[in-house]
């Protein structure tokens, strides 16, 4: 039995960054990279299920990205993943979450896991769609924002909880295999010591190409994407103004501001 965990290497901004020449992203030199926080929880959930299971379970971490992504995959291996798979082809550059999901779905077909976990969202792009789109390509049952899970490897169904607005809880039973996106706080991710990361470096990371997954260049990159980033920029700084004076004066100033924003020059 396998649990496939989709992970992403996210980028956090360093101080004083600059944009890329094409203006569609930040210059990669100014990124501090790490494992996506949500994925830390979904990986931990898979490893916990494996540790509690009486039957053997393989936790497979998968990521789509160039070779520097190996760093987060090694972290996953250090935290208890049994295997790590990385998919890359230069054609994948520029993919949106839908194209990435197509790749992940191909990996899931290839691996045939009993369950697929993904994080609810990534901390850098926040589309919150990769996991769910993967389920769509697989045509598997799915659920988003899972905050508690009861799943025995190999079982036909799993029961999980979702937190809803207003403090309500949703308890749901789902057919397996399924794709679940995991919410922060579902568990306490373990610490991967530097020694364990170093020891994990000895474990191989399997690299798959598009042909290995029976995909073509048209399935990924901008060609395979449903959306395209036009530009990335810093908005002009917002302004704050403390309105002083008596109620009438304040109301007058407020009205003037509203008119200004509406564009009424009159």
């Amino acid at each position, binding site marked *: 039995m396998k649990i496939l965990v989709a992970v992403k290497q996210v980028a956090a901004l360093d101080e004083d960054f600059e944009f890329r020449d094409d203006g569609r992203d930040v210059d990669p030199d100014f990124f501090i990279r790490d494992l996506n926080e949500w994925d830390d929880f979904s990986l931990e959930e898979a490893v916990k299920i494996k540790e509690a299971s009486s039957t053997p379970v393989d936790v497979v971490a998968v990521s789509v990205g160039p070779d520097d992504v190996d760093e987060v995959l090694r972290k996953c291996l250090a935290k208890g993943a049994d295997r790590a798979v990385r998919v890359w082809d230069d054609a994948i550059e520029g993919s949106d979450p839908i194209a990435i999901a197509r790749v992940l779905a191909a990996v899931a077909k290839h691996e045939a896991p009993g369950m697929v976990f993904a994080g609810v969202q990534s901390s850098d792009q926040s589309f919150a769609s990769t996991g769910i789109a993967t389920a769509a390509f697989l045509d598997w049952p799915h659920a988003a924002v899972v905050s508690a899970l009861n799943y025995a490897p190999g079982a036909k169904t799993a029961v999980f909880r979702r937190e809803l607005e207003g403090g309500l809880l949703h308890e749901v039973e789902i057919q397996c295999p399924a794709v679940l996106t995991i919410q922060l706080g579902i568990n306490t991710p373990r610490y991967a010591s530097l020694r364990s*990361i170093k020891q994990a470096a000895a474990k191989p990371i399997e690299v798959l190409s598009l042909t290995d997954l029976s995909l073509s260049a048209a399935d990924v990159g901008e060609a395979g994407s449903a959306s395209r980033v036009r530009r990335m920029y810093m908005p002009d700084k917002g302004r704050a103004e403390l309105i002083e004076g008596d109620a009438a004066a304040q109301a007058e100033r407020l009205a003037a501001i509203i008119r200004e924003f509406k564009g009424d020059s009159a």
Partner: protein
Amino acid sequence: MRLFYLLGYAAIAVFGYGVYVQIRKYRRGAALKLDGSFRARLGDMIGKVLSHSTIARRDPAAGAAHRLIFYGFALLFIGTSTITLQYDILEPLFGIRFWQGKFYLVFSLVLDVAGVALVGGLVYMMYRRRWLRLPKLDYARPDRAPGDPDFDRPQYRREDWAFLWILLVIGCTGYLLEAARLVWLQARPDVWDTRWWSPVGALIAQACRALGMAEHGGALLRHGLWWFHGLLALAFIALIPFTKVKHIFTSAASLMVRDPQAAQRLPRIPESQAQAGVAKITDFNWKQLLNLDACTKCGRCHEACPARAVGAPLSPRDVILSLRDFAKATLESGAIPEAAELDVHGKAPGQVAQETLWSCRTCMACVEICPVAVEHVPVIVQMRRKLVEDGAMDPLLTKTLQTIHKTGNSFGESKRKRAAWTKGLPFPVKDARKEPVDVLWFVGDYASFDPRNQKVTRTFATLLHEAGVDFGILFESESNAGNDVRRVGEEGLYELLANANVAAMAGASFKTVVTTDPHSYNTIRNEYPDFGGRYEIQHYTSFVKQLFADGKLRVTSPLTYRTTFHDPCHLGRFNKGYEAPRDVLKLLGCELVEMGRSRANSFCCGAGGGRIWIPDPIGSEKPAQNRIKEAAAIPDLDVYVVSCPKDLTMFEDALKTTGNEGKFVVKELIELIREAIPVHRPEEVPA
């Protein structure tokens, strides 16, 4: 008589078996190769044993009493052995007799005096245990609750008293024997006329005679007592390896295998070792297992420990004693139990709890004061390594370690911001990676990123600039030095940091390294050599002292403050940098009033060993508060002087939280130097 010999051989056999069991126990520990010459170690040990220098420290009365017992016992033992030597070996085999004539008389006198010393020492020790009620001799544990099976360990007390009483009875019956013999043989002039060569025996004999004892009575008494005394002495010998008496051997051996750098330079994890740190009792090396048995429960580490002083669940003494009980229970029988029963982590008797290990500040107060060279800090750090591997630590510490891994500093700031403190200085700070400098300043995390410390850092830069020192820094190539990361037990991260810094320093050209941070100072000085980084390094206090001596800095407006100085653990105890900061304070004109706990006995601010990244329990006293209260007792104190960035943070906070704000201030020595050398007004600055 034949029976006595039989019993004697039996006692020696039991002793021999006991020694075998103990040595087998130590050999069940991990291997360790000692460096340094055997002869130097032996000489060092003999010097310490004969002088009792380590036992007399901070407790001269106990030192004196132990000296009496030691020398009394040693002389009596040698005396008795030489009698055996002549009586059973030399005379029957070679016909040699030396126990006669003048030699015999002088020896009787020496042994009589030795007996007085022994008895006197023992009586004082009994007085000390029974009436002085020293807190350090209280076996109640801060890491256990009343009612726990190993809370206050009354069996230790029983053993202490049995030890004292047996020795006392052996000593006293020796005198009675002597007296009984004199009474018995009073008719023989060669015996009776020389009786004052054993004055105590003679006095007792006179008393016996006065009470009406005659020759016959003396003979009877002597016969009975002889057996009693002899059997007791044989029992004592037989019991040595099984009781605290073994400290005669284990403490001496421990002193001999002492590592003077035990806390300053922690051991690397060998390449061949898959697991980090200590999980099982057999993961400790033989020397550490020997250390456990060397402990005499004197309680000096218990007394010196800052964690214990503020009620944290840690006493270094009890870590050692717990593990000793554990080793005794598991490693003294014929076969070693299953691996699961060797786990030293946990809350069962003999195990050490996580909270205990995380309470340690690695301040080295325990290692420094231990009279028998027990090295607690490496034991604790080795156990922490296992906890780190398991992720068994405070969530905030986990986060900090991840942050350090990601950004190279504990503040989670961008690497690029490391030198942000230089902005606004009226002169450029050289980039040591790009141009050669005389002095490479290793700034360290706190001095680089903490806003309060940045002021001090800028001041120090200005002082260096004014003194004409050619210095530079490593800018974003500097990483956290790793001293505290290593003491947390995250050895893999430490290796990463140390290697990164050694590589960065290899890319710079400089003559000497200077740092204001004692933590960085310690690890660069003592631990980087293991990573190929060998530098001449100074803490700023000694560097500045030299600048004054060379006339590069001159006090122009002397200060008149009444000050006290806090020795940072890593500058003082770790690296013996006691004098330079005091000399500088005096150069500035300050009056220096020492706190009770100073120099080697300085009291840790509580930030060491990674504790600065772990929140203290709410409501409990912090070590820094305990320390500030000590300083507050100095009348009319103006300035509490520190020379460590973490100290500045810890004590400024403690000054406020103890309600002493306004009574005196906490200042970096650098700030006082600045005050004593006021900045020139711009028009006076030479162009």
